[in-house]
C-alpha cells in the first residue's frame, strides 16, 4: 500500500477527489485529513512494478486539476 500526502496549502480537496474518481481502477482510497495534509492510499498490489510511475501520473493529474481549478476560481 502506498500513501500519498498532498499539502493542504497547495492542493484543493475537490481536485484530489476528482482525480481519485479517474483512477478508481487502481483502488485509490478516498482521502483523509492528516494535519496539514490530505492523504490518499493506493492499494493496487498487482501494479507494484509500475507503482512509482502510477503514483507520479496520479500526482501530476491532481496538480493539473488543481491548476485548472485555481484558474477558474
Amino acid at each position, binding site marked *: 500500500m502506498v500513501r500519498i500526502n498532498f499539502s493542504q496549502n*497547495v492542493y484543493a480537496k475537490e481536485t484530489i477527489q476528482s482525480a481519485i474518481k479517474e483512477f478508481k481502477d487502481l483502488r485509490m482510497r478516498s482521502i483523509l485529513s492528516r494535519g*496539514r495534509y490530505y492523504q490518499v492510499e493506493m492499494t493496487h498490489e498487482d501494479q507494484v512494478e509500475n507503482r512509482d510511475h502510477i503514483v*507520479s501520473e496520479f*500526482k*501530476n493529474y491532481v*496538480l493539473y486539476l488543481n*491548476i485548472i481549478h*485555481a*484558474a477558474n476560481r
Partner: protein
Amino acid sequence: MKTFKESTKTRLNPEASEIVFSIDLKIYLKDIVLKACYAIIDRVYIFLDSPFRGKVDVYLKTKRKVTPKQLENVRDEFLNGLVNASIRKAVSRKNQKMVERIVGGAINAALAKPQPHPRSCGDDEDIEKIEREIEALKKELEDSGESAYGKDPLGIRKPAA
C-alpha cells in the same frame, strides 16, 4: 553570498531523475507557481509540497532517464517560467483598464443602432440632375401647350356619351 544552488536549496536525485528545490511564496505567489507548472506539466512529473507556510518545495521528475545537467536545465526552465508568469501578470494588471475600455467600446459600437447614412456628394448631384430633367419636361409641356393635346390629328377622340 549564497550560491544559486544554496538559495534554491536544490537537491538532486539522478537515480530517480528527480530534482527538488524550494520557492519563497513571498517572491512568487501561489498562482504564479501554478502557471509555471502548467507550462511544463506535459513533459515533467511535478509535485508540490508546502511543509511550512510561505515556502513551496517543487519536485520535478523527468519521464525518462536524464543526466544531472539536464535535470538542472529543467529546473532553470521552471524558474524562468516563474519570472515569465510574474511579468505577464504585472503587464496584464497594468493594461487591464485599457483593455476593458477597448473591449467595452467595441461592444458598444457593435450594439449601437445603425444611423441613417448622410447624403453623399454623389447623391446631391443625382437629385439636382433629376430636378433639372423634371424642370425641362415641365417647360416642354408648357411650350407645346394644351392645344397640342386637344388637336386630335388622327380623329380618334370619341365624344363623351
